[in-house]
């Protein structure tokens, strides 16, 4: 089975406020507040460039993060994408 693609929430759906080590995200659709840590805000930002799978996302994030030596970056990102999807912050494309 091919890796799933994920897409960011439509523009304007989320309000993101960095608060030190945490980032608060207000979802205007559900009116829910989510508090997340790295790398969630970075994933959301990278996903805004267009829907992609975990491997493509890893490539996009590689520019900003040292993903080598962290094990399989795509596998880790795949788990995080699943969690973001469960929170309703990203969708399976």
């Amino acid at each position, binding site marked *: 089975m091919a890796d799933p693609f994920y897409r960011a929430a439509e523009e304007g759906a989320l*309000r993101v406020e960095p*608060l*030190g*080590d*945490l*980032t608060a995200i*207000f979802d205007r659709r559900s*009116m829910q507040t989510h*508090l997340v840590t790295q790398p969630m805000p970075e994933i959301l930002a990278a996903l805004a460039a267009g829907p992609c799978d975990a491997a493509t996302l890893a490539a996009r994030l590689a520019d900003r993060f040292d993903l080598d030596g962290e094990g399989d970056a795509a596998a880790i990102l795949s788990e995080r994408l699943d969690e973001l999807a469960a929170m309703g912050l990203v969708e399976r494309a």
Partner: protein
Amino acid sequence: MRHRTRIEVGPVQFRIGSDWAAPIAALDRLYAGYPRDRDRPADATVRLFAARPWRRWLRPSVHIGGDYIVPDALPLPLSMGLLAAEMGMNLQVALGWRRHLLFHASAVAKDGRAVIVSGESGSGKSTLAALLGEGGWRLMGDEFTLVDPGSGDALAFPRAVSLKNEAIAEVAARVGPERLGPLLAGTPKGDIRHLIPRADAIAAMHEPVRPALLLFPRFGGAPAIERLGEGEAFVRLTEASTNYVTLGEAGFAALSRFVRETPAFTISYPDSARGMAIVEQLWAEAVR
């Protein structure tokens, strides 16, 4: 209802009705120095009523009602009518207020800047605020602090301070008897006695104040101060707010701004004197 009064505490105009004269008389005494504007529509209604008509005389017990009710709240004996009124007022504000972000927090102000002290019952927030309010500080409130979503300013809610147990003697030693309400002994919350805020605090109750410091106190243990990150302060304040969820994005925006602009600390202190010293120390650093 047979007996009624109006009380204005900060931005909230209460209409209070009672089946009995005594709770209204006690409220009118506590709030005699507060502004009265009977033409202004009430924001919140509190009703103290007898469950059955004959219960007004026979072992009278006070039920609390109003715009919002807690169905399983126990009725209180009439001797605790003042406590029933206070609980009713708190309930209406906690559940009904929408104009400001509301925190369970006490607050004091000096030089136009506020120290906001958020904590559960027993954390000492009320006693600290009451004692600071007898010193060089303006008491803004012992129970609720409101934050204006537009300006980010803190607004006072200086109801009569609800002193509990050991705090009663501590404060009574500093103020005249005319500033204290009757002793309500053996209530479900222990002994309670109300302190009427100083006249200058009541006169200034409509003046907004810029938040300078946010504290989460813990009474007991060695003196300690720990800086809190913005994110953790955010989480704690969502828990301390009764209307954060209801306000939606306005609440989110106000709270994000608040924790970003206001340095936050947890503090521990073994007694009031040391608690007040810690507040003064952190205040001096925050406004420097």
